[in-house]
Structure formats: structure tokens, C-alpha cells
């Protein structure tokens, strides 16, 4: 049976790692926003754990009784504001995803990237970036999606 602190740190570590894995490995924009939310949850837990003490009381005085050891209120205040900012950022990300879908009709990262490169090339009046320097995998992906 592992120690409680180790378990909690493991949870925070796992959430952060799963969040980063989601950002790196998923191809769908909404899935990436989900992963950002997971990463944020893990970061908040880690921040709160930074000054965690086993056996401390909540930093609130109830009926005039002052506990001997109280939890640190500073990271709690930080996490409180971080959660509220987080929901604002998520809302912004979701509205951007909505805009991307209206503009390109897809939410797949590779498709969106291809459309954006095409748009930039069209706007600048040049051909698509020269594919002779691109890695072989990118070239075949481009041919497949272009066909």
C-alpha cells in the first residue's frame, strides 16, 4: 500500500502525462482541447500539492477555533484563479475550433494544416512549399490527401 502523498503525486503526474500525450498524438482539434483540459487539471493538482501537509486543517476559522496546523492558503488562491482562467481559455479555444470548421469544413489537424499552407501560398502568389526538401513521409501524405 503506497503512501498517500506518493499516490497524489502519481495522480498529478499521470494527468499531466496523459494530457501531453493527447496533445501530441491526437489529430482531431476537439480532442486536443480535451487534452488541454486534462493537462490543466493535472497542473492544478500539482500546484496544490506543492505545499501539502498531511493532517493540516482547512484555512478557515470556524466559530473562533484556530487549528494548530492549517493548509497553505497561497497555492489555494492561485489554483482558484487558475481554474477560472482555464474555463475562459477553453471557451476561446472552442470558438476558434468553431471558426476553423466554418472556414475549412474539417477539424482534422493534418487537413487544417494543408488548407492553411495552401491559403498562405495562394495569398503570396507562390507555389506550395517545395516538396523536394520535405521528408518522404510528408510527401506521400501530401500526395495521398491531394489525390
Amino acid at each position, binding site marked *: 500500500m503506497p503512501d498517500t502523498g506518493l499516490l497524489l503525486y502519481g495522480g498529478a503526474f499521470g494527468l499531466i502525462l496523459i494530457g501531453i500525450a493527447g496533445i501530441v498524438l*491526437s489529430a482531431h482539434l476537439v480532442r486536443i482541447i480535451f487534452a488541454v483540459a486534462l493537462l490543466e487539471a493535472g497542473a492544478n493538482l500539482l500546484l496544490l500539492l506543492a505545499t501539502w501537509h498531511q493532517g493540516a486543517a482547512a484555512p478557515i476559522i470556524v466559530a473562533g477555533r484556530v487549528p494548530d496546523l492549517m493548509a497553505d492558503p497561497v497555492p489555494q488562491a492561485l489554483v482558484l484563479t487558475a481554474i477560472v482562467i482555464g474555463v475562459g481559455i477553453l471557451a476561446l479555444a472552442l470558438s476558434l475550433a468553431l471558426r476553423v470548421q466554418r472556414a475549412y469544413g474539417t477539424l482534422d489537424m493534418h487537413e487544417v494544416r494543408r488548407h492553411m499552407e495552401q491559403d498562405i501560398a495562394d495569398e503570396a502568389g507562390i507555389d506550395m512549399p517545395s516538396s523536394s526538401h520535405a521528408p518522404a513521409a510528408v510527401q506521400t501524405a501530401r500526395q495521398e490527401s491531394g489525390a
Partner: protein
Amino acid sequence: MQWLVLVLVVVMLTSAVAVLVLKDFLAALAALSVVSLGLSVLFVILRAPDVAMTEAAIGAGLSSLLFALALRRLGLWRNGGRP
């Protein structure tokens, strides 16, 4: 207390994986709010009732609503958006 933390952490990590693996976006959203709910119980155990309230109201409540609205607008409400 230790067992409660163990169960919560295991549930949270499992649903975090489910968020990324599930094909249906609405199911992934449900898994995401399970993570938030577990996190808010953990915050209570860490003696941070203010943060727990915020996480329950915002993480499990409002942001799920936000995601659900956005999924509806994005047309991913049913069958994961893949016809």
C-alpha cells in the same frame, strides 16, 4: 483515507485515458467531467474546500456545458462526427 485516494486516482486516470480513446465525443466529455469530479473530491481531501467548490462548479459544471454546446454547434453530437 488512503483507500479513498487510491480509488479516486485510479478512476481519474482511467477516465483520463478514456477521454482520449473513446470514439464518441459526448462519451469523452462525460469522462472529462468524471475527471473533474474526482479532482474536486481530491481537493476536499487536501483541505482546500474553496478550490473544491470552484472545480465542482466550473470544471464539472460550466465547462461541460460549454463543451456540450460547442459539440452541438460542431456537429459532433452524434456518432463521433464520423458518418
